[in-house]
């Protein structure tokens, strides 16, 4: 099991969610975040917008998947989020030791789907 965290441009969210759904990955948590990467803190251009502060608006997507779904998930996220410009974001893949479905008490891979 892997835990995938992707930080993407806010306006790519709909497309990424659509592509994840196409790969039958439904479990997903989304949050508004701010942060910085190579765009750094200088008043950078965010799609034509000069941010006053040092942090830029992003959307963070988190999903837990079984091994077979890791590559499809990465493909879907890249496919939906890539524009080719600086600031497209990052994907982090983490090992996931355990997952429990609260309603049934199921554990592991079964609980993810």
């Amino acid at each position, binding site marked *: 099991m892997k835990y995938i965290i992707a930080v993407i441009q806010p306006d790519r969210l709909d497309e990424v969610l659509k592509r994840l759904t196409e790969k039958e990955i439904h479990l997903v948590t989304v949050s508004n975040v701010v942060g910085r990467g190579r765009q750094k803190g200088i008043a950078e251009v965010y*799609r034509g917008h000069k941010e006053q502060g040092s942090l830029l608006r992003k959307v963070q997507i988190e999903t837990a998947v079984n091994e077979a779904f890791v590559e499809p998930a990465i493909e879907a996220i890249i496919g939906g989020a890539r524009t080719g410009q600086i600031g497209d974001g990052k994907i982090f893949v983490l090992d996931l030791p355990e997952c429990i479905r609260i309603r049934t008490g199921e554990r592991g891979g079964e609980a993810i789907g």
Partner: protein
Amino acid sequence: MKKILIPAILILLTAGTAFCETESPAASTVPAAAVAAPAPKVDTGDTSWLLISSALVMLMTPGLAFFYGGLVRRKNMLSVLMQCLMILCLISLQWVVFGYSLSFGPDKGSIIGGLDWSFLKNVGLTPNADYAGTIPHQLFMMFQMMFAIITPALILGAFAERMKFSAFCVFILLWATIVYDPVAHWVWGVGGFIRNWGALDFAGGTVVHINAGMTALAAALVLGRRQGYPNGMSPPHNLPFAILGASLLWFGWFGFNAGSALGSNGLAVSAFTVTHIAAAAAGVTWAILDWLKHKKPTTLGLITGMVAGLVAITPASGFVDPMGAIWIGIGAGVLPWLAVTYAKNVLGYDDTLDAFGVHGIGGIWGAIATGIWATKAVNPAGNDGLLYGNPMLLWIQIKAVLVTVVYSFVVGIVLLKVVNVLMKLRVNEHDERVGLDLTQHREAAYTIID
């Protein structure tokens, strides 16, 4: 404008005519200054009420901004507020420079006012007996300015979340000049042809609501749907703002309708009362329909019904009694509800905030209902409607509706197409996704941290 003025006008005209008769022979022998007409008397009560009413109607545009703003997505909040406030500034100037003169200036062929009053020339602090004989002419101009401002602001509900700001500014100025000003002249201007038919429009059913509503439909059709419509849309981003805005609209509407009596008198009180009653009846009706159809009454449904009731009573507010107001309110709960619940989905146009459904349909209903429930018992200067034995009025009202519907819809489409050719109406796909706040104004309504 406004038929209730006729008695006042008649009195002043008779006085004026009598004076003219004595003046003409005298003029040849006495220097003109010596026979200057005694200024018509300014009534302090009427002036106070119209000053307050003008301020109340002004507040409706920011109120509308919050009503609409609460209903869009977070990323477009500022764009809606900005568009409303920019209209407030732009149209105020347009009105002073030539808009007021086109609407109310000396009649040219029953179609348009002349430019004699541009830059407010001849619009001074003495009353103009043609329009309001007891308040300074300049106050009448200011009161009307607030109507000219809110009317184009209503339209933006149809194209919210996708129109380019530059194109918006150009379109609004063209629309105010080519659609609003002439239609205001036809209905309210002395000599205007719809006014000459005897059509009744107390506070702007045709001029404001049908006019804005039909151009709103035109805009929804010309601009096309938003990306993701209808299935991928987020819910309104801040309903409490929408409720605040709708409440401010109701508050401001007392100035809109009761102020249209142009005096502090019984007619103003009657308009105040029926305005309140119709809004209440329509709000309750809409909530009940929601309850029946969707199992739960919604806040958005309740406030939409309130606004629809205010829209519908607008043309009738100086001519109907409280029972008429209840029926008009109930109709305003039913017809716009049908329009936004069924017609919009069946026809597939994306009228973002239901400017056509509420103002177009509500306005048409109100104008026609005026021909049904109007009674001289409320306003002797008005007329009797269908239920009071005069079906002719209903026919005149329908004619006035048809002319306005066709004119605002057709000219609305033409203007939008012209602006589209000049500068493209719609933002590109990327900007629409990112949102108009960032792409059109480089600002965000809400921060994420702090």
